[in-house]
């Protein structure tokens, strides 16, 4: 029986669409974030704080993979352009969903597109969207063992936010244990412990993001 060598990445169809999305975003000069976390990890709150800090001089849009529009309504009420990707209960966003949603937004009127993925530490790690930066948010109540249990998610992060740091002392959260797992999986990844409640650490995250926006605005940088 003849054997045909293939050696093709199984997600190649998704990856090709992700490349197209990346080109669409680049042509419009938009920096796109893919924000991933567990349900309740703080995705929407972090996005809200990020918008508050940047909106005076950065044009921001939000795309949300969800089953209801409740998270987006708050942003829309503040005049932020939003697009709901109705996932119908799906466990992740993929490049095709983003591809279909991109035309609903006026990309030329944006500098930054924040894509809020489905709350899940497993499936979203496997699907490229065409975004530029994978933002992974972990939170203290989830426990310090998460990098060890969900290695794919943490090894694919470009920046890692550890949220709800104000709870660390009550939860006896072992930051060193957490960081060591992250560092082994993803050496040198940008890491910011934050608290959206107290504001701790948010300035460092915003500074980091501003630096990425500045790089994006300077072709060839």
């Amino acid at each position: 029986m003849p054997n045909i060598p293939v050696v093709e990445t199984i997600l190649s169809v998704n990856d090709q669409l992700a490349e197209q999305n990346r080109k669409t975003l680049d042509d419009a000069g938009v920096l796109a974030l893919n924000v991933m976390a567990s349900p309740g990890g703080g995705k929407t709150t972090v996005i809200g704080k990020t918008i508050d800090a940047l909106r005076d001089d950065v044009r921001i849009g939000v795309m949300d993979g969800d089953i209801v529009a409740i998270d987006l309504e708050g942003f829309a009420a503040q005049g932020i352009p939003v697009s709901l990707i109705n996932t119908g209960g799906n466990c992740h966003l993929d490049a095709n969903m983003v591809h279909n949603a991109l035309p609903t937004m006026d990309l030329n009127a944006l500098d930054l597109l924040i894509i809020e993925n489905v709350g899940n530490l497993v499936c979203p790690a496997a699907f490229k969207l065409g975004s530029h930066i994978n933002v992974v948010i972990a939170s203290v109540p989830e426990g310090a063992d998460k990098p060890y249990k969900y290695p794919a998610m943490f090894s694919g992060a470009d920046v890692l936010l550890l949220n709800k740091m104000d709870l660390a002392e009550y939860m006896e959260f072992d930051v060193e244990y957490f960081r060591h797992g992250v560092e082994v999986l993803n050496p040198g990844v940008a890491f910011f412990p934050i608290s959206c409640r107290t504001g701790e650490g948010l300035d460092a995250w915003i500074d980091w993001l501003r630096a990425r926006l500045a790089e994006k605005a300077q072709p060839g940088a």
Partner: protein
Amino acid sequence: MHELAVTQSMLEIAVRHAEQAGAERITRLSIVIGELSSYVDDSVQFYWDLIAAGTIAEGAELAFTRVPAALRCNACGCTFPLSHERYACPQCGSEDVTVEGGQEFYLDSIDVDLPEPVESAG
């Protein structure tokens, strides 16, 4: 449930390569899955039986090769399986370790039936 999308992609790739080779039927797919790629072969198999029905790959066997994720100790050089609790060398105790392998996820090859060669008279 993300295995559904993955299984569709797998079928698309296999059929494309089989058609390029002029094959009539796909009988087997050899798939390499790394431990860190977060796919479950049982789920892929479940969707495969539904999705491949009615295609040239109907009934094809899925052969999975699982690649374990390993850690290498940068202090003593030994290699050991990835634990899901602690990343430290079992030999020397060093925590200076690096991940090696386990990210793989690809279709390695397919077995196919080709049409019977037509004997040409001349």
